[in-house]
């Protein structure tokens, strides 16, 4: 190592050639973009195709005024890239930004403003919002302040886990939401370190992948407002509004105030990996925090507005994201930035996968029209560094593009299956005429993904965006008044049913039905082929009081209440055993579609659908049974028979014969109270009769 360092130090071109106010510098290297620590200095490199000139602005940490500004001499620009090495900087105490000089001509797409300091799109650390919700000084001329990161971290042999996609069980969580509540009783609530303290909980629940809501640097104060009536502060809690794509959210780190968020997040990932849990990031490349023409000059618009954003012919921002602007993802420069960013997170942070928010935007061209072969999506699918990581699309956007089942996949991309969510919700609440679709959804949606396989389907019933599972069975309509938008925000079409009473109640019949409905939803989710995803807290009946759009609620409405772990011990037990059931039965987790025939000489097809009577599914009704043949798994597995009764009354179901020499045992019965709702292994009651009574709105699962 010392020899290598010596060789670098002896380079003949690492000496200063220029000096301004005692700061020495020289021409830099165009690549890589961003700020890179080099021998004796820092290499700064930034792109702009339309600027007339560029000035590097250097600050001491948290100081309002810069200590030096250095305009890039003409000979420091190569093509459209400005680069410079500045020597003898105190890296830990440095913040940097740029001023660009160029035309202010919005109609032509240019919005240069030399009075503004903008941050580096490649900044690895961003200061300015170091501590969550600490009120910023809005008068400061430079708000989101680029810093350097040490990229050395002792991973001790850690690497991405590469769990086969078919075996994943995803848990969707919010860094603050998971542990901010005082009921979490941990030392660093609402932070990366706090989540680390709760890893044992996740492990005992049985998930093997955590999908984290956006953790790229964003501004929680964006669109801040007090609630018009209650005065309660409303902030950007979810974080779907990226300031910098390469920087972790400082306010999510207990050590953010000390600028150690990079180490804290890496340590969290290392510890999750040690517990066998993958980390998937929810990433937002469809827009940025700069909003439309009324928004702030943070970065991109002041560097090269026409390159970074999709603009209308008269220079306004197209708004396919519903958030004011649209990132110009299929511009070659922006495409490379996205690629560089994901490569960075995979190689530097050992991230296992990504879920792309409003991913359909990534398939639009520079005029906003959908592309049949989008270069960005193709690049990501075939990228060498991303070669083993999971790519999941939210396959729609706010501009009306809906691509569930038709997202350009290149054999790599999976999709949030919105049709799965809608169908299962309607089925559970008792809609008729659902069974044909339900059969498809349970099989991994072959109607949508026949050419891609069931692992293209990320199955979910609830996610951060919408009702929690508890609220889905407790509210017929949304209650978003606390968001301060007159209950006009959030979806109206929730396919929810309150089980006979709107909201919380102490009616034991209603509550018992809700308990059952939650178990029914979960059972269907974890019996289905595809990738199941569970929403944070659903396993303990988390409620948002009927709010289905908690984007601005950084409080108990959104937070996990850890007292529920004790109060809802029965439900939590059900979930952890249900997840264990899925892990124990590989026949549920196939990565190929069922063929509806006997492929292995077992005498039974791989899957067969029944009604209350064997071989007679009633496709127009509310009951469906199916038998999955375990001999079709390699190595062989148990047979699994599920009888789903979404009719309001109990019904007898004929039971198919158990495999030779075996007897059916009850694995799950959602009509029973805990602990008789779910059994370990072969500990459930034996079923010798040829008929079982399945309670109203209940599911029984038998194994043999």
């Amino acid at each position: 190592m010392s020899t290598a360092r010596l060789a670098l130090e002896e380079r003949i071109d690492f000496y200063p050639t220029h000096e301004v106010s005692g700061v020495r510098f020289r021409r830099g290297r165009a690549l890589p973009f961003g700020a890179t620590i080099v021998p004796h200095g820092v290499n700064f490199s930034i792109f702009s195709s339309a600027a007339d000139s560029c000035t590097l602005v250097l600050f001491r940490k948290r100081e309002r005024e810069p200590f030096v500004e250095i305009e890039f001499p003409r000979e420091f620009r190569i093509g459209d890239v400005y680069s410079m090495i500045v020597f003898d900087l105190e890296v830990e105490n440095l913040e940097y930004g740029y001023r660009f000089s160029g035309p202010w001509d919005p109609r032509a797409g240019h919005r240069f403003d030399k009075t503004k300091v903008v941050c580096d799109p490649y900044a690895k650390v961003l200061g300015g919002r170091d501590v969550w919700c600490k009120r910023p000084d809005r008068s400061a001329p430079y708000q989101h302040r680029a810093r350097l990161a040490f990229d050395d971290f002792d991973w001790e042999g850690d690497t991405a886990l590469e769990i086969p996609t078919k075996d994943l069980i995803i848990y969707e969580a919010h860094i603050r939401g998971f542990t901010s509540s005082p009921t979490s009783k941990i030392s660093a609530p609402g932070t990366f370190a706090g989540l680390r303290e709760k890893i044992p909980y996740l492990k005992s629940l049985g998930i093997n992948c955590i999908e984290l809501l956006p953790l790229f640097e964003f501004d929680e104060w964006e669109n801040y407002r007090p609630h018009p009536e209650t005065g309660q502060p409303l902030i950007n809690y979810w974080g779907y509004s990226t300031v910098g794509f390469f920087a972790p959210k400082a306010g999510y780190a207990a050590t953010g105030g000390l600028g150690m968020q990079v180490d804290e997040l890496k340590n969290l990932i290392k510890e999750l990996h040690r517990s066998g849990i993958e980390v998937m990031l929810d990433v937002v490349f469809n827009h940025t925090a700069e909003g439309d023409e009324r928004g702030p000059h943070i970065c991109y618009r002041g560097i090269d507005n026409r390159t970074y954003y999709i603009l209308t012919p008269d220079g306004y921002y197209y708004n396919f994201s519903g958030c004011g602007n649209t990132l110009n993802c299929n511009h070659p420069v922006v495409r490379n930035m996205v690629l560089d960013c994901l490569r960075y997170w995979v190689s530097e942070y050992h991230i296992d996968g990504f879920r792309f928010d409003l991913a359909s935007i990534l398939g639009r061209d520079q005029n906003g029209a959908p592309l049949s072969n989008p270069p960005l999506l193709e690049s990501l699918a075939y990228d060498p560094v991303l070669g083993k990581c999971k790519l999941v699309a939210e396959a729609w956007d706010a501009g009306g593009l809906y691509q569930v089942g038709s997202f350009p996949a290149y054999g790599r991309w999976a999709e949030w299956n919105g049709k799965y969510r809608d169908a299962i919700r309607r089925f559970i609440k008792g809609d008729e005429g659902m069974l044909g679709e339900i059969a498809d959804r349970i099989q991994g949606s072959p109607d949508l993904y026949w050419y891609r396989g069931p692992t293209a389907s990320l199955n979910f019933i609830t996610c951060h965006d919408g009702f929690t599972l508890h609220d889905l069975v407790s509210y017929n309509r949304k209650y978003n008044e606390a968001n301060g938008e007159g209950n006009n925000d959030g979806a109206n079409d929730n396919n929810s049913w309150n089980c006979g009473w709107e909201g919380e109640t102490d009616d034991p019949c209603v509550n018992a039905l809700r308990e059952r409905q939650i178990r029914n939803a979960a059972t269907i989710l974890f019996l289905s082929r595809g990738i199941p995803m569970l929403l944070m807290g659903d396993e303990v009946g988390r409620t948002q009081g009927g709010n289905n759009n908690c984007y601005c609620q950084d409080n108990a409405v959104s937070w996990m209440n850890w007292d529920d772990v004790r109060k809802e011990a029965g439900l939590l037990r059900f979930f952890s055993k249900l997840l264990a059931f899925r892990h124990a039965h590989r026949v549920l987790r196939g990565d190929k579609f069922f063929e509806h025939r006997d492929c292995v000489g077992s005498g039974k097809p791989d899957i067969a659908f029944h009604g209350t009577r064997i071989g007679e599914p009633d496709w127009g009704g509310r009951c469906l049974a199916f038998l999955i043949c375990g001999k079709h798994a390699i190595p062989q597995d148990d047979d699994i028979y599920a009888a789903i009764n979404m009719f309001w009354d109990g019904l007898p179901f004929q039971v198919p014969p158990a495999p030779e020499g075996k007897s059916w045992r009850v694995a799950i019965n959602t009509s029973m109270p805990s602990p008789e709702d779910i059994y370990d292994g072969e500990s459930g009651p034996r079923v010798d009769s040829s008929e079982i009574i399945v309670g109203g709105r209940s599911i029984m699962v038998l194994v043999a």
Partner: protein
Amino acid sequence: MKLETSENNGIGTARLEGSLDGKTAPEVREQLGPFLSANSKMILDLSKVDYLSSAGLRLLLLLYRELSARKGKLVLLGVSEDIRTVMSHTGFLNFFTLAGSEAEAQQGLS
């Protein structure tokens, strides 16, 4: 940043005082160099260190690695509660043996 070193029974003790950060860490490293090569068992007394930055933590880890490579051992003495918490959150704590007293530190090295 002040640095004092002493040796006793084959154990080297280095006492630091002040802030260990990007500015002081390279100086400390340079000054510790010869002392480090002469001792394979070392106590780093941090009881008078009021601030440890990212660069400071990295220096500690480098010392740990250097000593481990020579089958040596490093014990940190008198780490304040605040610094300990930061070390825990960032994962650096896992690498080190911490001691509350000189005697405990001696024990940790034996």
